[in-house]
């Protein structure tokens, strides 16, 4: 994880450490002056001059300590922020290389939290840790060295105090930690109960099940309250214990001091009083140092977990490597499946098995079958969204695995079932991924929009510069789908894949878009996944998929004769005479 600190950051770290040493030195110098001040006053021969000299020196130390602390804060803030920035960037860049296998392994929400939340955890630890982990031990050791020579009894009391605090905090935190770990889960439960109720509000009411849902919620609510009540009761002990320990320490030092003074020769007594006040301050410094260390140990576990979650992502081996074939064959737009099978890593059963078919240049091939039969999986193998397990998928007679990944993507344009739009404007969405500078009035944009029947955008106030909200929420489902079809058409790839992209459109628009595509893109190879017979009946070739296998292949009329499943699907949508 350290390699994400650059050279400049290391210089900052070193400077920060040096500043901390200076700061500790100055902090520990101050009690010497307070000791002198006390001695001056308690000796009974107080002179303003002595006070001003010693006080002035002490203030200089304090000023120096403040300046070095602020400078140190500057460097650590920069290092911690730079570190988290680099870490975030590394994560993002790594994740953009992930294929769906890795995406599924981690899940999208988890990757999002890893990129933001977990990095913030680490950052907080670095920012605090860098100061405290370096400072506390130096401070503790140095201060102990300074005081241990003055009086054995005082030193002993200090250690007792430190021990009491460590033990008390240990017990308190030890009791609460398991409960803290549980809190997130309990909050999730509560959220689930609420979400369930809100998202199913119609069903809940239709079933008059309000009491039923409320009792579920109460259970989650009770568990959460019990847990939090316990932790707040126990954590409440922390402050009183600390206060007693610190006050007790001061008191003990004075108490012991009284005896020490009585034993000492008369002339040294005033000096001992000075020592005593100085010692009180040193001792409090030592205690503070330990308390800082304890606080670090409290946030440490979370940082470790976050660190692990981050390295897990960074160290993931990519399941998919790009090939290096840059130029295609002379053939253009041919897709061939040779005895292809695929299953998910954790699954035992093939999702699709022994698929073989050819889509020749300029042909339209359609896949039909019930939901979950593997249609989408089959087409996902073409642009390597999923990786073929057995057999091979060829584009232009070259295995997709041999293509340079970007080159492969240039050959294929996919429109997914769920329309995807990005935050930006219409133009940035249509020309998405294009490297060149494209003018607003580029005829290709207009063509793509027209073919996809998305020319409604010209009626908008800002035309193709109209804003698109995140996830395209300011457009209707049908509009989003037409825009994502336009994007695919703009890309001008040799193979176009429509994964059930037309079902969000009403019948009329569906037909018009397909007519346009047939007219304008008749030289492209088109692969369509569909549910509606009407959408695909004119395809050059229809593959009927059932349970991951091809059970029928041919044209509409042939299949009606030869493939019972096809006929069944057709009849479920159209009556006998309509076929």
């Amino acid at each position, binding site marked *: 994880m350290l390699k994400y600190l650059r050279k400049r950051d290391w210089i900052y770290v070193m400077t920060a450490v040096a500043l901390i040493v200076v700061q500790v030195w100055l902090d520990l110098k101050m009690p010497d002056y*307070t000791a002198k*001040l006390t001695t001056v*006053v*308690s000796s009974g021969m107080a002179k*303003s001059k002595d006070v*001003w000299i010693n*006080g002035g020196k002490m*203030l200089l130390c*304090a000023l120096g300590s403040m300046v070095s*602390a602020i400078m140190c*804060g*500057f460097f*650590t*803030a920069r290092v*911690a*922020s730079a570190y988290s920035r680099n870490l975030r*960037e590394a994560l*993002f860049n790594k*994740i953009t290389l992930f294929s*769906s296998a890795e995406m599924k392994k981690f899940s999208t929400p988890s990757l999002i939290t890893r*990129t933001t939340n977990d990095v913030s955890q680490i950052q907080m630890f670095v920012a605090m840790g860098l100061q405290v982990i370096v400072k506390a031990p130096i401070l503790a050791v140095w201060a102990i060295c300074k005081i241990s020579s003055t009086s054995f009894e005082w030193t002993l009391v200090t250690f007792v105090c430190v021990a009491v605090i460590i033990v008390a905090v240990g017990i308190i935190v030890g009791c609460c930690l398991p409960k803290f770990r549980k809190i997130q889960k309990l*909050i999730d439960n509560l959220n689930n109960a609420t979400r*369930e109720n*809100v*998202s199913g509000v*119609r*069903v809940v*009411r*239709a079933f*008059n099940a309000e009491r039923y849902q409320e009792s579920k*919620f*109460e259970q989650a609510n009770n568990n959460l309250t019990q847990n939090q*009540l316990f932790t707040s*009761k126990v954590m409440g*002990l922390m402050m*009183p214990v600390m206060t*007693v320990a610190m006050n007790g320490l*001061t*008191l003990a030092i*004075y108490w012991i001091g*009284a005896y020490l003074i009585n034993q000492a020769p008369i002339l040294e007594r005033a000096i001992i009083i000075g020592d005593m*006040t100085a010692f009180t301050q040193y001792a409090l410094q030592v205690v503070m140092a330990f308390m800082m260390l304890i606080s670090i140990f409290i946030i440490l576990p979370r940082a470790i977990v976050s660190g692990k979650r981050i390295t897990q992502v960074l160290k993931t081996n990519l399941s998919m490597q790009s090939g290096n074939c840059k130029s295609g064959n002379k053939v253009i737009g041919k897709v061939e499946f040779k005895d292809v099978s695929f299953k998910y890593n954790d699954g035992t059963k093939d999702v699709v098995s022994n698929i073989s078919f050819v889509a020749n240049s300029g042909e339209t091939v359609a896949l039909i079958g*019930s*939901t979950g039969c593997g249609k989408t999986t089959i087409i*996902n193998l073409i*642009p390597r969204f999923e990786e073929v397990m057995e057999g091979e998928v060829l584009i232009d007679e070259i295995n997709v695995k041999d293509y340079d990944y*970007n080159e492969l993507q*240039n050959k294929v*344009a*996919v429109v*997914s079932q769920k329309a995807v739009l990005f935050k930006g404007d219409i133009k940035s969405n249509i020309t998405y*991924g294009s490297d060149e500078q494209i003018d607003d009035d580029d005829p290709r944009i207009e063509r793509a929009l027209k073919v996809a029947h998305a020319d409604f955008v010209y009626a908008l106030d800002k035309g193709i510069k109209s804003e698109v909200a995140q*996830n395209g929420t300011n457009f209707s489902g049908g509009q989003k789908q037409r825009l994502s079809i336009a*994007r695919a058409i703009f890309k001008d790839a040799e193979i176009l894949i429509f994964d059930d992209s037309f079902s969000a459109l*009403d019948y009329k628009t569906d*037909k018009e878009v397909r007519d346009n595509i047939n007219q304008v893109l008749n030289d492209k190879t088109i692969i369509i996944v569909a549910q509606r017979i*009407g959408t695909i009946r004119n395809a050059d070739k229809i593959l009927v998929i059932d349970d991951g296998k091809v059970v029928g292949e041919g044209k509409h009329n042939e299949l009606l004769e030869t493939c019972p499943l096809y006929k069944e*699907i057709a009849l479920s*949508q159209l009556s006998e005479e*309509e076929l």
Partner: protein
Amino acid sequence: MPRINRNQTKEKMDFSALKKTFLYCKPYLPAIIISIICAVVASVTTIIGPEKISDLMNTITGSVMIGQKINIKEVVDICVFLVCLYLIGAVFSYVQQYIMAIVTQRTSKKLRTDINQKINKLPLSYFDKTTKGDILSRVTNDVDTISQTLGSSIANLISSLVLFVGVTIKMFDTNWILALVTITTSLMGFVFMGVILGKSQKYFNKRQAYLGDINGHIEEVYTNYNVVKSYNGTNNEKIKFKQNNNNMYNVEWKSHFMSGMMMPIMNFVGNLSYVLIFAVGVSIIVGGGTSVTIGTLIAFIIYARLFSQPLSTFAQSMQSLQQASASSKRVFEILESDELSDESNKTVKLDTVKGDIEFVDVKFGYNEDKKIIKGFSAKIKSGQKVAIVGPTGAGKTTIVNLLMRFYEVDSGDILIDGKSIKDMKRESVHDLFDMILQDTWLFGGTIRENLVYNKQGVSNETLDKVCEAVGLNHFISTLDNGYDTVLTDATSLSEGQKQQLTIARAMIKNSPLLILDEATSNVDTRTELVIQNAMDNLTKGRTSFVIAHRLSTIRNADMILVLKDGDIIEQGTHTQLLNQNGFYAELYNSQFSEDE
């Protein structure tokens, strides 16, 4: 139509919502008073402390100055007194925290319960206006903020106030010159810190904004990674991320740096007042003042610390009270929303239902100014299957919403067996209907829990029978735990299976009337056939309403109502409507026609 209404203007100091939260704590008033008394006692012990320390110091130095041995007995007396004082202080401050913990946790539990119960009393229109995430965050985040800030804030404010006043009086009582010195330095420090705090807050807010940008961006990219990759958009996204990331870095280190300055400055101010107290104190002694001793100086050094403590508590409490106030406002916004009207006096109930339904000139709009349904009338005879078709936004689902009394009609009436549904309790209306929606709603729990839902005493035989009817029996027999299999996010049910489960749930409820709102839109046509059989079983003998955009589903309906812009424009059976060659025919034919 859902519209998101969020014009939250910057909150001013508005504590009116907090008052309501305090009223929520009212049952705990005695406990709160005890807790406040404890806080006051603890503060008093803190104020007495320094004076005793001063005595102790004077006892020690006094004898040193005149060259005598220290009176150990006196020292021990003071020390024992102080030990007791500290312990009493600790015990009282813990008791105070303990009581407040109970009060706040119980209050926030009550708030959560009340919000949740409120959800079930709100009219459905509330949910059109509010997002799910918003309600969730009120139940958890806002209540959490209240419970975290409120409890500590009240007690802290009161004990700080006592401390503040007490220390000030004590200081002036001891020596007014030193008191002024101490107060001036502390206040100086605070003004300085306030300035820095304001600046760092600015950077912190910016940081949150940039973090939001990053979040939005990566969510988009991670969710749609396939699109990003297949359009070779990775490089552009990397550039965009880098930009966002750098923006964040630039404000982030500044906000950290600024807030990191607080501690060193505080320390410096502490030291400054230390030196000033000594310097001024010694000048007084040299000038012949007898009121100031070494003990006084030591006491003032402690006073200086005690004085700045309540000041920072005030600042913190104000901030957290402000947060609590904002959260309270959001919580009470939902708690005080208009509820569904009370219906305890409605008595009309249908015991045996025939199933004649009549719509009489029904008018309705979600907004006052925009009518969705403009005068809908229809008579449906018992046992008929009625299909409602029409383009999106024509008001199909609205009719169902009115029928179920999820919304109230603006004018006109809906009659079931001649009785107006307005005269029945909502629950009684709901009991009349089985309803199956496009969005299959299943919850985390076993299959059995999902099927039986809140119905009591459903036997396994009934479950078997129903599952066979909807074609689920095979699927359930393949599961290791059968009906007791827990549905989690990991259990991958297909859309069809989910829909089969909800149909089974409706069959178990077994109400006399049936509503199917796009129930099969998410399943493919073959699965639909299976479900269709199940639904045909369900519709047999029941008056049923079917909404579907897939027209094949409704060909066999007894009556098809074609809805457009809130009016019925055509009405009849499938063949009749095709023969009319109107809107329905056009809609129907567009799915086949193909230019060849």
